């Protein structure tokens, strides 16, 4: 009895939710367009750690509470990034002389920097939004990070 009543209620709910909470058209459009941003000639450095997903206790234990830090990794390169007001502080491991580009969503390069002998770099970043880094090292294939929001 309840099962039948629930099935009827479930169908009513389906109808209400489809009318009131459809997938927004801009999400569908964005998703379809996103194929254009796939990597063509670069390895992915995947976002492996994000302090935003850590518990506060963990962050306190690491002494990183309040600072957003991100770690990306490809097969051969680790990229640590700290988000500071108006800038990203980064570190390549192993240390390498490289050009690091900050890409924004339309594919433009918003900023670029050279890493120093210790693999450190600093990139100015304006406002919030989605970004990714592209790391170019002489004699090695390009590496691109996952997209990240700040």
């Amino acid at each position, binding site marked *: 009895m*309840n099962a039948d009543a629930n099935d009827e209620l479930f169908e009513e709910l389906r109808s209400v939710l489809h009318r009131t909470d459809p997938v927004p058209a801009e999400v*569908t459009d964005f998703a379809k367009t996103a194929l254009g941003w796939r990597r063509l000639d670069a390895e992915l450095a995947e976002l492996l750690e994000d302090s935003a997903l850590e518990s506060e206790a963990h962050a306190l234990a690491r002494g990183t509470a309040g600072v957003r830090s991100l770690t990306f990794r490809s097969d051969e390169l680790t990229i640590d990034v700290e988000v500071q007001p108006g800038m990203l502080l980064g570190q390549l491991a192993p240390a390498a002389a490289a050009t690091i580009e900050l890409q924004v969503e339309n594919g433009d390069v918003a900023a670029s920097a050279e890493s120093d002998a210790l693999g450190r770099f600093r990139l100015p970043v304006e406002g919030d939004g989605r970004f990714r880094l592209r790391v170019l090292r002489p004699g090695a294939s390009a590496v691109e990070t996952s997209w990240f929001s700040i």
Partner: protein
Amino acid sequence: MNLDQLIRAAAAGDQAAWNELVERFQGLVWATARSFRLSRADAADVAQTTWLRLVENLDRIREPERLAGWLATTARREALRHLRLHGRELASDEADLFESPVDDPLEVALLAEERDTTLWRAFAQLSERCQTLLRLLVSEDEPSYEAIGAALEMPIGAIGPTRMRCLDKLRAFVGADSALQGGAA
């Protein structure tokens, strides 16, 4: 094309194949992005990031049959990240008790029928977990229990019983609302 073929074609740049993937899974991604009671605007951001994650990983998917579960897991993680970074308008479940559950003018305007409004109000009173589960279940004609389990971090065997319990609660809230309005008496 089957799922495996669609993924391979999309990874090679086939826009039509990619569009088909988006259309097949966007209901699942959207329903998951709306979990943690994120607003439509926040959920849109989460859903977009989820699609970018899939684009990043298109050439690395080894088990096509697990794509739905992967998308749900990814959308859940991105929803959590968004929540940690930006918070949300409703800070706690307690606050919900005192908020009008129907506060989006668009949503109210679309609910012409009194019965719909009652159902929507009742739905808004459900726990976040029930809301997400029911959103996921109605998002597709044949929902993948594996994906739903991933989206909710719930054992697959618990989905059926939980669905029943959530619908029981929903029916109770609908009944209480109707009684308050005195319509049925």
